[in-house]
């Protein structure tokens, strides 16, 4: 097997709390050493040596919330095209949402995804299965069989389960399989025809608003049920200060609760909607600046566990419409890391914490390999120039859909190389 030695790199490994200059040695599929003293036995004979002066090596990102169009919406994104985008973004594993057509709510679909991924994808694709059949919020799916087939979590994707009883049973039953219930919360009734954050800005635009309470009312219910059932609950995409407070209280009470935040909620706010820019129509909607700042605080203090891209490819045809008629969602795999690094460059969040929320934390939550540079671990990692500036251009986007919120944005932090299981899947 071939040995690669990455020398003089800044090694950032949240799983061991390491941020130091040193060497990473990859032998075949695995990391055999990573740290300041990794070279104390000298460079192994026949090894390829890569000088990484001024660059960082981080565990490959694990994106906990990715929507892919396959099966059923291959014109938007396939598993293969998503994996190319992921690799370019330093993402080595993605948790794929079940919102496909057909829905990933049975064993055959999980097997289809894993088989397709094995044949066509260069990064790890881990399917999350639906909580309810057809994502309709009523009947539970076969949690046990789906776990056995390879589903890593349960979620109704973009949908919120309205029934408290269904949610209670799902949390209770999932506990028997040690499975996570990941839930996006938006009260459909309260959100009604809303399309952006409720407030003055929406009022002037004449757009119906979505109040913050549409997120927190079902979230508070879920948190109460998580306390009741002792089930594993993950608030998948919170966007408001109120939601962060609710999660923080539940954690303090000892409930098995975690939370995630979309990179968009950390980096953008409602003003970015501008004059009806439909690429900024997202779920949850972009909130006020105070909420964005609260998300950063919650990320820092550990209330928020993970950052996700919420990658959601949408066809131009469904975005070139009046705002209220346009599809919801934005792509994000390729820009996830660089946008998150803004928080580091602005001295808002330490680098270790950012990388943890992007790799170690999701690995732990979903029980996935990766998220670490520990010797013996699979070599899922990214070589990054943390300082290199680049411009996001539509023409460079690898994802099959181009609905990015960051077109024209100047980002800092470029992925130079991505390794999945020791294999180079992306090289700049």
């Amino acid at each position, binding site marked *: 097997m071939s040995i690669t030695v990455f020398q003089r790199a800044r090694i950032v490994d949240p799983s061991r709390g390491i941020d130091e200059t040193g060497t990473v040695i990859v032998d075949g599929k695995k990391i055999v050493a990573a740290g300041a003293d990794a070279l104390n036995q000298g460079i192994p004979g026949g090894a390829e040596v890569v000088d990484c002066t001024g660059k960082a090596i981080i565990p490959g990102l694990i994106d906990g919330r990715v929507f892919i169009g396959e099966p059923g919406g291959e014109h938007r994104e396939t598993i293969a095209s998503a994996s190319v985008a992921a690799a370019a973004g330093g993402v080595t594993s993605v948790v794929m949402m079940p919102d496909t057509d057909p829905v990933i709510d049975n064993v055959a679909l999980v097997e289809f995804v894993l088989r397709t991924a094995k044949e066509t994808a260069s990064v790890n694709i881990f399917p999350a299965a639906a909580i309810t059949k057809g994502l309709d919020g009523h009947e539970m799916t076969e949690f046990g069989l789906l776990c056995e087939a390879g589903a890593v979590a349960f979620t109704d994707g973009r949908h919120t389960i309205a029934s408290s009883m269904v949610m209670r049973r799902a949390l209770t039953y999932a506990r028997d399989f040690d499975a996570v219930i990941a839930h996006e919360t938006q009260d459909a009734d309260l959100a009604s025809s809303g399309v952006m954050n*409720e*407030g*003055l*800005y*929406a*009022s*002037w*635009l*004449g*757009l*119906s*608003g979505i*109040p913050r309470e549409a997120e927190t009312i079902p979230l508070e219910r879920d948190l109460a049920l998580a306390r009741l059932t002792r089930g594993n609950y993950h608030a998948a995409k919170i966007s408001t200060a109120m939601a962060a407070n609710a999660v923080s209280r539940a954690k303090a009470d000892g409930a098995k609760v975690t939370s995630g935040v979309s990179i968009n909620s950390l980096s953008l706010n409602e003003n970015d909607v501008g*004059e*009806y820019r439909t690429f900024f129509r997202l779920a949850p909607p972009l909130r006020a600046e105070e909420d964005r700042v609260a998300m950063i605080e919650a990320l820092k203090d550990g209330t928020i566990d993970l950052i996700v891209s919420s990658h959601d490819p949408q066809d131009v*045809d469904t975005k*070139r*419409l*009046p*705002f*209220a*008629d346009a599809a919801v969602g934005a792509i994000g795999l390729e820009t996830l890391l660089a946008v998150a690094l803004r928080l580091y460059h602005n001295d808002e969040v330490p680098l270790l914490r950012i990388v943890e929320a992007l790799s170690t934390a999701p690995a732990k939550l979903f029980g996935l390999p990766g998220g670490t540079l520990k010797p013996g671990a699979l070599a899922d990692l990214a070589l990054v120039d943390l300082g290199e500036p680049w411009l996001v251009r539509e023409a460079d986007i690898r994802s099959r859909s181009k609905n990015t919120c960051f077109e024209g944005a100047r980002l800092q932090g470029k992925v130079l190389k991505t390794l999945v299981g020791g294999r180079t899947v992306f090289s700049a």
Partner: protein
Amino acid sequence: MTDLSSLPPYPHRHLLGIRDLSPFDIELLLDRADAAVSISRQSEKKTSTLRGRTQINLFYEASTRTQSSFELAGKRLGADVMNMSVASSSVKKGETLIDTAMTLNAMRPDILIIRHQSAGAAALLAQKVGCSVVNAGDGAHEHPTQALLDALTIRRAKGRIAHLTVAICGDILHSRVARSNILLLNALGARVKVVAPSTLLPSGIAQMGVEVTQSMVEGLKDADVVMMLRLQRERMAGAFVPSVREYFRYYGLDAEKLKAAKPDALVMHPGPMNRGVEIASEIADGPQSVIQEQVEMGVAVRMAVMEALLDPRRNRDGHNA
């Protein structure tokens, strides 16, 4: 003063909302509209200002009043006017707004008038076509020509807008007319009050430059102008207000409530009216009502707007400039 060319040229290509206009732009349009009123009052109403120009009315929402007002305005200016009736067109077959716009654009119109149920539709259209676009109402966003015609009506009756007190009453939440009027009246220095049940007020209303009250008597106090808004039928029965009866009791304009306003206050309504819901018949047809004048000013304002947007001094080519 019917010589429109004596007025300064107008600086914008589209009219998408009052928000884009400076007080100077607004006054300029009102001055032009004043001139257009005299044209409409002549027995020979047709001019050649827009002769050879093509105007397309693209109405996604039925609107007899606004559409015919734009049509008449175009015809009085000598333009060729085409009405795209959406109900019988390819839009029904699923064609998107942009595709329809591109198709119409290929016919090289000079001006497109659009009414659409979605906020931002006019702005979207304006990005995609090579001609001038006039927003004739987009969702709950703006209805700029309505605000202009209201302002013209007020200015002609009161001689000014600045320092007048205007009460806007009714369904502010869903009203593009209210938003455009709030912007315009504030731009010209009026004091704006809004009166509505709290369920029909948009979030953040207190920061929109208005005084808010739930009492008609309080809201109409010292008012020089009382603007009533239409309450959509589907919003009357339980969803936003419990009943027509209760709404009229608290928010319907009748003789008793009107007493709170100044004795010479104008009563306005953008139409179509729900008599007995937001306004009593005796008031709608009473001496203070200028509702018919509003309709007349509507044609004049739309003539002024189209003629300003297509002013050859700004845009010699008239197309793709």
